[in-house]
């Protein structure tokens, strides 16, 4: 019962949030003169008549509130509008761009969780050991290296040499799972490593810090005094308590990334939400921008709901309200 009420309440507030965000994006767009949009479409050499024509065709000559009403009406009916340039429905564009983005994020998450949490645990249980020192250095490298550098490096030292020697499994661009899991993984492996490199560093540091704190708690001393094995003390008592904040961080990160992994998508030419939305911003393609903003906001809202549910599941002291 409590969960049903919680979900209804959170979904309703989530809808309000998404509406506010999209409205914000909508009005922000009109802070610029509409003629700039039309000039992009019509080309630099276009005459004022042509530009006026374009403006009228896009409906940009109508009062803002009328346009906004139109936008809302479409939104309620699940229609996100059409691209100014290609007339393609934004819904279709989203459907095309979701798989690459989800592929990158899901694979990346799995890798960075395994690496980050694993290394974090080993570091925390052997503080100041050589393993800990080396991992601390690598964490700093991972944190300070821009994503595009890691991506370009992988292309340079992995993809190109392999390709030159006829090994083409590892590839750039996007290939859907429908072309075979092997092919899909071959295309995704470098993007995954690129995305995971940065986040594994963040999660190693987070896990190490949390676990070190936890291992200093009184209840860990109790667990040792009970005569439990050190392994059980570390995992059953330490890691179990240390992972709660890691899980909530994960929710936030995944929610954000699903809105677009711009740099990774661009470096490897995957397409995806990030790459498309950046292009839309460059070209003032309002319907596309707003469509992607709505999707990104919805992911963050959903991720937050899941985080709160998981939190209540993981920690008996947390009550869902």
């Amino acid at each position: 019962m409590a969960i049903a009420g919680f979900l209804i309440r959170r979904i309703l507030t989530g809808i309000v949030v998404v509406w506010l965000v999209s409205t914000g994006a909508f009005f922000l767009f009109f802070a610029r003169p509409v003629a700039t949009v039309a000039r992009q479409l019509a080309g630099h050499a276009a005459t004022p008549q042509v530009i006026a024509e374009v403006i009228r065709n896009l409906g940009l000559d109508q009062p803002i509130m009328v346009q906004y009403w139109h936008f809302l009406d479409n939104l309620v009916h699940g229609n996100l509008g059409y691209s100014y340039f290609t007339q393609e429905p934004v819904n279709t564009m989203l459907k095309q761009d979701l798989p690459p983005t989800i592929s990158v994020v899901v694979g990346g998450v799995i890798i960075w969780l395994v690496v980050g949490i694993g290394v974090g645990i080993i570091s925390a249980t052997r503080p100041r050991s050589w393993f800990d020192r080396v991992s601390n250095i690598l964490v700093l490298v991972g944190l300070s290296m821009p994503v595009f550098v890691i991506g370009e490096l992988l292309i340079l030292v992995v993809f190109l040499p392999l390709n030159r020697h006829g090994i083409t499994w590892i590839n750039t661009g996007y290939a859907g799972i429908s072309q075979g899991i092997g092919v899909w993984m071959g295309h995704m492996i470098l993007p995954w490593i690129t995305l995971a490199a940065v986040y594994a560093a963040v999660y190693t540091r987070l896990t190490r810090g949390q676990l070190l704190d936890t291992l200093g708690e009184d209840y860990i001393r109790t667990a040792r005094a009970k005569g439990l094995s050190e392994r059980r003390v570390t995992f059953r008592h330490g890691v179990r308590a240390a992972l709660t904040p890691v899980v909530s961080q994960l929710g936030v990160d995944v929610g954000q990334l699903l809105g677009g992994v711009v740099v990774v998508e661009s470096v490897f030419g995957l397409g995806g939400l990030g790459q498309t939305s950046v292009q839309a911003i460059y070209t003032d393609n309002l319907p596309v921008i707003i469509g992607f903003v709505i999707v990104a906001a919805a992911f963050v809202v959903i991720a937050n709901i899941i985080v709160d549910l998981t939190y209540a599941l993981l920690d008996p002291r947390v009550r869902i309200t």
Partner: protein
Amino acid sequence: MTLLEVRDLTVSFNTADGVVQAVRGVSFGVDAGRTLGIVGESGSGKTVLTQTLLGLTPGADISGSARFDERDLLQLTEEEMRHIRGERISVIFQDPLTSLHPLYKVGWQISELIRAHDKSVSKKDAAERAVELLSRVGIPRAERRVNDYPHQFSGGMRQRAMIAMALALSPQMIIADEPTTALDATVQAQILDLLLRLQRESGTALIMITHDLGVVADIADEVLVMYAGRAAEKAPKREVFYTPHHPYTKGLLESIPSSSAAGDRLRPIAGQPPSLINLPSGCKFHPRCGYVMDRCLSEEPDLRQVGESGFHNSACWLPAGAAGLSEEAEELREEAVHEERGEAAAEVAEAVAADVPGVAVVGIEGEGAAE
């Protein structure tokens, strides 16, 4: 029969600030079924002492021996020690709020202990045992509370649960590290009663660590008073309370608000406990002692027999006969101080007297001098 015989135990830690000398050459014994009270201020080494016995002080430099049931606890491997912990010697910690794992049910935490030492016990049997134990320590409707999480228990109930856990495998010894300090006064008495009753029922030896002499008065057979990592006084309870020899013990007694001394002013002990990294010379208590003499500044006394019982030991240079709170004993002490206090010690005595008004310092006249 001596169950635990600790000899010359020394524990130190290397830290960035220097070597912390937490315990320096402490010896004591605990007989089966008896209770030893270890008394001292925070930082006197009493907790480190007992945790070292169970191998819970990682990174410490340890020397000495601790024979428990024919084996030296300090020489055991981690795996051997694991079988001692919780099964032969169990611990009750100070703060029941933080000592139970917040994410696991209380009953589960007790069953886990049982099954860690005997894999043949089924989960169901272990859970039933947990219910029995919880009702034995006075938790009402234990069969339901066993499925509660620690945050659903009150402080006193959590400490009862810790006691239930400590008793689970009928250990030969329980170490209770300030088990009542974090609790309300009324609950403190209940928990002490419970501990005492269960100890009598099960014949377990008990080491009760406390800074509260009142607790010791209630339950201890023998008392070890610790100061700056060393034994200051060691004696049967009666001797400690009626004929204390060490000025530190005497100071502790005089700083207890007690009904028998109604009308007397409380006498605090001057100064602060010393830093364990930078200990004073000679007797470590001399900078706070109202009876400070010249040799106290340079020579550290060892425990030696004092008083009349033959079981009373004190690490103080005052004459062996100067034990107790009587006027006679006080005269003996004053006499010794008059004879043996030179200029150096007189300076220290002035400083002690100046530190806290109301502190008794022999040979110093003034508002705060002994009345």
